[in-house]
């Protein structure tokens, strides 16, 4: 273990110290409690719909002409993405801690919808913090969260996007520590959140192993996942980390250019920093100010990367790369036409990388790409990206139907 790259930690005001200590202890207890495990597994199976399918992408494999491509379809989960898994896990921990309210930040609204869903299911009140600009861009998800009984609180300062929503949720939490549990939406934040969310998401990699064993009788050669904070990636990698023959690749948002502010790739221009409670790689200025980010996919549009993933990258175990906005949109189209799968724009970054590497790999090798979410939520974004005129007309007409 190198001294220099021990990312993680808990860089928070002292008022959070005890809360994090208690959370850490409760999580350790819960892991040893078979009743907790079976309640979690029951919810995953009978509410979220696990195990999710492992799709053999036969036509894409043939088209690309190299490695066999499998898609781990996390989009088949209830609410459409892997996020619900760590929401369910954390909500069960919150229950054990006697909390009555779940709070969360959200960017695109996916984590917000998953949290609001779980809050409704398990009987918590729910407050979701969301940047004003994201609320305007993601109105359908705001609508859904409100229908699920959550209060959506607009954040009016900063860049008015995800990182500010996280700040605001943290602040509300500090003012309401007795009542509120902060459901963090990825493998980020102060200890123990990164390892806790990895623990919940690790079911993805165990299912991949079992499903592939049954179908191919061997583990994959490569696992590819998109990386925002890193929860679907850490979940997909976890069971393979000690198996050096399995190559692990995380794909970040390359956005529309390589300059700071045009992308959200820490491997392109991240620097060591300390932010939102943890030490990791962050997109920031020379002066240590957190930089604005861009990605066509709201879920990858965040300046930091999970500390465990940053450590694995520093150790050389995980390779990090990026795909651009345009490559992601093209990958959605490619897999939609060939596999009947409409991917979320986030996950499409992983798919874009599969398109790059599969042709160069031997035919008996296997790539598993995690399809972290389905594309329904991106309907408006896709329509805009494809400059679909009929959709524009539809929106106009729809407006008319409201009158």
């Amino acid at each position, binding site marked *: 273990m190198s001294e220099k790259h021990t990312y993680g930690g808990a860089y928070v005001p*002292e*008022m959070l110290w*005890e809360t994090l200590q208690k959370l850490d202890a409760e999580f350790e207890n819960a892991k040893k409690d078979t009743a907790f495990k079976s309640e979690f597994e029951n919810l995953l199976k009978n509410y979220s719909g696990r195990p999710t399918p492992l799709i053999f992408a036969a036509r894409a494999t043939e088209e690309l002409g190299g490695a066999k491509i499998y898609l781990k379809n996390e989009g088949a989960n209830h609410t459409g993405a892997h996020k619900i898994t760590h929401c369910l896990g954390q909500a069960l921990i919150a229950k054990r801690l006697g909390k009555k309210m779940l709070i969360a930040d959200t960017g695109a609204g996916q984590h917000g919808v998953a949290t609001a869903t779980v809050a409704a299911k398990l009987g918590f009140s729910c407050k979701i913090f969301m940047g004003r600009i994201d609320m305007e861009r993601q109105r359908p998800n705001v609508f859904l969260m409100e229908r699920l009984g959550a209060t959506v609180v607009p954040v009016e300062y900063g860049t008015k996007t995800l990182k500010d929503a996280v700040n605001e949720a943290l602040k509300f939490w500090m003012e309401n520590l007795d009542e509120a549990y902060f459901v963090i939406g990825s493998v980020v934040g102060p200890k123990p959140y990164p390892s806790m969310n990895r623990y919940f998401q690790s079911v993805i990699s165990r299912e991949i192993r079992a499903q592939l064993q049954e179908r191919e009788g061997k583990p994959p050669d490569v696992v590819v996942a998109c990386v925002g904070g890193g929860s679907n990636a850490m979940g997909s990698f976890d069971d393979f980390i000690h198996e050096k023959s399995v190559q692990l690749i995380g794909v970040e948002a390359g956005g529309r250019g390589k300059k700071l502010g045009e992308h959200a790739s820490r491997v392109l221009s991240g620097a060591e*920093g300390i932010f939102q409670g943890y030490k990791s790689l962050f997109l*920031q200025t020379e002066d240590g100010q*957190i930089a604005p980010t861009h990605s066509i996919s709201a879920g990858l549009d965040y300046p930091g990367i999970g500390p465990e993933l940053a450590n694995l990258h520093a150790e050389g175990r995980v390779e990090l790369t990026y795909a651009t906005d345009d490559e992601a949109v093209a990958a959605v189209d490619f897999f939609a036409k060939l596999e009947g799968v409409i991917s979320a724009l986030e996950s499409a970054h992983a798919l874009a990388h599969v398109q790059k590497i599969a042709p160069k790999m031997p035919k008996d090798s296997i790539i598993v790409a995690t399809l972290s979410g389905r594309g329904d939520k991106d309907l408006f974004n896709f329509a805009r990206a494809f400059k679909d005129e009929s959709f524009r007309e539809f929106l106009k007409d729809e407006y008319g139907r409201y009158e």
Partner: protein
Amino acid sequence: MAGMNKLQTLLGDPSTLLRVKSGKPFFMAHMIAGYRSDSESEQVAQALVKGGADIIELQIPFSDPMADGPTIAVASEDALKAGATVAKSLELLKKVAAFGKPVAVMSYTNPVFRYGIPKFVKTIADAGASALIVPDCPFDTEEGQALIAACKENNICFIPVVSPGVPEERLKQLASAGGGSSSGGKDLLGFVYCTSRQGITGATSKFAKDLADFATLAKRVFNLPLAVGFGVKSKEDVQSLAKIADIVIAGSVFVDAIKASGIGTVEKTIREIIQTE
């Protein structure tokens, strides 16, 4: 051995801890470097000193200030938009220190970390600062340890920030961070910054119900002067805190005053707040 810095001289006066009894605490006035511009913030510092501040808390703006409410968060953002940088803030620090009052520099971990911890602490010491406050850097992290070492070397007080609800066990750990109050700890820590409640800065005067009990506990554990801030906005707030605090802190109220009617009102605002007649 290094001499005493200005803050230590101020607090070292034997009458300090009697201030609470006489109901006349010191006043630490908070301001943001570069808000609304470099020159305006220099004038703000001057007005605060003229108006009666005993200590100036100079916040170096950070894009994402997690312990600050909307007032200071937006003002920090405005300062950055107006061109504030860490380097310019450190230039301003020299000018503010020249007004003669002890200056406590406040910022968040990331800008300090990026600047380089030893270099940052040496720079603020050379610029005339007496103390450093970094609310999101616990002393038992690698960077917290580096800050402590650099502060010791440069004769800068490293101020712990605590809140009602922080358990006694943790307070004891913090108190011993500088090697215990009987050895170097007292000089290192200077005073304890106690927030008036759990939460963030901002101009709502809802002090925690258990604030007085917590203040007593903190003073007993640290054996240091106690500063109380967060939500102080009126003469009445200062008077009610005077019963428990050796130092009272206010900040958002000055930002509000500047926003409402410009920097000309800062001196009047501080006079109104700290008058004890």
